[in-house]
């Protein structure tokens, strides 16, 4: 039995790791269609990763060992976070009471090392990006704890797997709750993965960038690891969103796969729509945007504390 659980966990981790670039490609493709272009194929991120693998890695002369270990730490921590996600009905590889907090801080560790590496290079641009990333991370963390925390609070469980399995979609107010939750998870995904209203993933004007500017001086394998970890991160948040909608009460695999595909498509479509129709916020407006998502989380918590 233990062996089966282990294999299931490993398979779901592999699924996340392999499908992650595809999701980013899906978003880009839909974005292209929205703006009237044909766009790169959905598998384009894989080609880009392959191209980066072949390139030579060059580090700045002022860079210390932090710059060389940071990409590895990034990818490993993000993979650990991915291993905690319940995909399908299988128990994730890492699952214990309170893993929801570890999940948040493992991602926090990845961000910490990325910020350190950005400052380590010694360029003022990277330093600026690092400062911005740190500032917005402060506002992004409460969103996670107030949304997933409110679900945890309602169910009284603290393990990601148990929390998601306690979601029951037969209750009308629960559905609304989940929809309201998914708004704030969406905003969280947009922030953490540096997508459009917060940060523009395509811009290469240093003054306006947040995430992209931090990896400006990286190349080759290092850049590959950073890019790959950001793809995984985006997919992690997508899974956080889709898992809300699984029919955990009925263990129906076909239904689960259909729901997964549909919700992923809807999510990528809404990411693409938001990126097409909105422009990037002014830096000073981003904290408001993030606090708005926190407010939704607080509202969730309030409402479900008092209707119980």
């Amino acid at each position, binding site marked *: 039995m233990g062996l089966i659980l282990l294999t299931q966990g490993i398979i779901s981790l592999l699924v996340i790791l392999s499908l992650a670039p595809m999701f980013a490609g899906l978003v880009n493709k839909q974005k292209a269609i929205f703006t009237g272009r044909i766009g790169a194929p959905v598998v384009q991120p894989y080609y880009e990763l392959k191209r980066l693998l072949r390139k030579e890695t060059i580090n700045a002369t002022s860079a210390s060992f932090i710059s060389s270990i940071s990409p590895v730490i990034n990818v490993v921590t993000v993979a650990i976070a991915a291993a905690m996600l319940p995909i399908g009905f299988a128990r994730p590889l890492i699952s214990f009471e309170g893993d929801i907090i570890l999940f948040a801080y493992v991602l926090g560790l990845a961000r910490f090392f990325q910020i350190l590496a950005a400052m380590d290079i010694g360029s003022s641009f990277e330093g600026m990006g690092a400062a911005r990333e740190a500032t917005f991370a402060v506002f992004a963390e409460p969103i996670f704890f107030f949304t997933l925390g409110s679900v945890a609070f309602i169910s009284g469980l603290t393990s990601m797997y148990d929390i998601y399995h306690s979601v029951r979609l037969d209750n009308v107010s629960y559905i609304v709750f989940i929809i*309201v939750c998914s708004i704030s998870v969406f905003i969280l995904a947009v922030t953490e993965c540096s997508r459009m209203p917060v940060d523009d993933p395509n811009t290469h004007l240093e003054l306006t960038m947040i995430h992209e500017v931090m990896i400006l001086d990286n190349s080759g394998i290092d850049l590959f690891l950073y890019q790959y970890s950001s793809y995984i991160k985006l997919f992690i948040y997508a899974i956080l969103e889709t898992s809300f909608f699984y029919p955990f009460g009925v263990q129906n695999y076909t239904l689960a796969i259909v729901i997964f595909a549909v919700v992923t498509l809807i999510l990528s479509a809404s990411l693409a729509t938001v990126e097409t129709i909105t422009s990037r916020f002014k830096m000073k407006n981003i904290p*408001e945007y993030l*606090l*708005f998502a926190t*407010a939704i989380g607080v*509202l969730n918590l*309030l409402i479900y504390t*008092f*209707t119980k």
Partner: protein
Amino acid sequence: MENVLSILFCLSLFYLSVTSRVKAYVTVLQMQGLLLTVLLVLPFVKHFSLYALILPTTLFIIKVVFIPRYINKIIRDLDIKRVIEPTIQQFTFLLLVIFSMTIIFIASNILSKSTDIETIPFASGFSAVVVGILVIIFRKKLILHVAGFLVLENGIFLFGIAVASELPVMIEIGMLLDVFVVVFLMGIALNRISSTLSGFEVTALGRLKD
């Protein structure tokens, strides 16, 4: 279902406190009017009576159709700038809203133990009243004071729904008439002010002399 609509109502309040467009205020007012109409119609789905439909219909016509159109007309006619001018930062404003909402929810939960009220609609209504007042305090534009007043009024309406499932219809209609007259008078006043002074801000009114 009432709870669900109240949640949406609270979400609209949050949106109101982060948006920086005058137009968005009008949209939110329209949406809140729609929510209130649905809330009023809901109890009558099961036992239908024509008499009971008077209030929702009036509410719909006044809050969803008439007042937003009128405010839009004022905005267009007086050529009001589309960005709101808050006196404090939006971030602080939102923090204030979250804080007061939390207190209100806790307080109404305590209240609901001793009296017969529904916590969520009651608290949402109460929060709308507070947010309305906050909008009036912390916005410079006069047209937004009207909007704040209308939000406050929406809150009182929701309040009424939470406290007693049916308020006397005449009182509610009287309230609606009041609101309508106030908005109308405000519009006329704004027109007058615009012909005398060039700005539509409260700060300009502070300098008025004989």
